[in-house]
């Protein structure tokens, strides 16, 4: 599969998962540091994405007359 950009929602889910793993005592030191690095990057990305977003608007039109009857 191609490397599809993960959605904002997926990013937030991953962030939540990471924060839970970091709270888990069974996560080792190296793993924790890796997760922390990933989390910080992801948090930064999410923040920037949301911070710079602007609502897009598109109007959908269709010849309604043809559809009545």
């Amino acid at each position, binding site marked *: 599969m191609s490397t599809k950009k993960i959605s904002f929602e997926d990013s*937030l889910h991953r962030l939540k998962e*990471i*924060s839970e793993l970091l709270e888990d005592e069974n996560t080792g030191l190296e793993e924790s540091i890796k997760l922390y690095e990933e989390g*910080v990057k992801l948090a930064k990305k*999410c923040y920037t994405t*949301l911070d710079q977003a*602007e609502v897009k*608007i598109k109007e*959908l039109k269709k010849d309604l007359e043809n559809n009545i009857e």
Partner: protein
Amino acid sequence: MDLFNQFDETVLTVSEITDSVKKTLERSFSGLKIVGEISNFKAHFSGHWYFTLKDANAQISCTMWRGFNSKVFFTPQDGMKVIVNGSITVYPPRGNYQIDVKSMKVAGEGELQAAFEKLKRKLSDEGLFDEELKQPIPKFPTKIGIVTAIDSAAYRDMVSVASRRYPLVELIVASSRVQGEGAAEEIAQNIKLLDSQKDIDLIIIGRGGGSLEDLWAFNEEIVALSLFECRTPVISGVGHEIDFTIADFVADLRAPTPTAAMELATPDQAEIFGFISDFSYTSTNNIFSVIDYHKEDIESILTSYGFRAYDSVIRNKSQMLDNLIYRMQNGTDQLIDKFKNDLEKNMNLLESHNVEKILKKGFALVKQDESFILRAKDFDAKKKTKLKFFDNEIKIN
């Protein structure tokens, strides 16, 4: 022609009499207002309406052509009391008369309410409101379809709520008339249109507040059915808090207003920012405590018995070493003392041999070629000779 006076002689054909009746009735009964209850209502696929108006003792057939009925904001239901405006027409092929209805309004607000209750009951019985059919509303929609009038305040409110709460979202607007002529049909069509777009996560149908009549399009069966068939989750936000429409009951989620609908549709970015900064804070704390935890682990290993035992081995050895060094130091010092003693003895000896002391006693030394002559055999009488006394040196030859 006087029909009655000439009745005996004149024979009329069916067409003639019908034509006569048609002219008489249509001339006499035009521009009428008639109140009655609708029954046998049929909306033909051509767009024309056929129904009967009745009261306790009489009934009359009615037709309402498409061009006129499209201006009626509601779809009539059997049992609804209405006031129609129209004229009597006669339809010769059937020999019947009917009202050609030009306009129609409900006989009172209560009629709409009653129609509403009736449709609500019917659709409820048909299962259109079933809770188990309600679809969950996605938490983080990417695209939201909106069915509303694009020039309305409701639309502007929805856009501003989306911008404030979740600017990541894309809004796809299918603008519709939301009241009056053709509104219900357009709303239904636009719901279908948005539903047919593959990537829309959620649809909002909405309009601002108004009278029961203004909101009526959302009480029409055609809208209810399009909502029921819609595979995309729908939030309805019609009118004010107190307004309930049929659409509200069929939609997957009812919001009291269009603004509230957009609020329910979008996550709040303030909360997301909060979550992100929370993450940064707690995770940083957590990673430090993980590191501290491991530090403590290492410290407890270092202070464990095994490590301490090793430590004491080192300490023992080091003590031994100190001892040795001490002893060595001691030994050297004694040696140095001994040397010192010897040296002193020798110095004294040397002192006793001091030539100057002997000269002082009156002895003299013989010197030739700047060397002292210590034995007679070394003396050369031909050489210049000096005698060194304690106080001076003198030349002899």
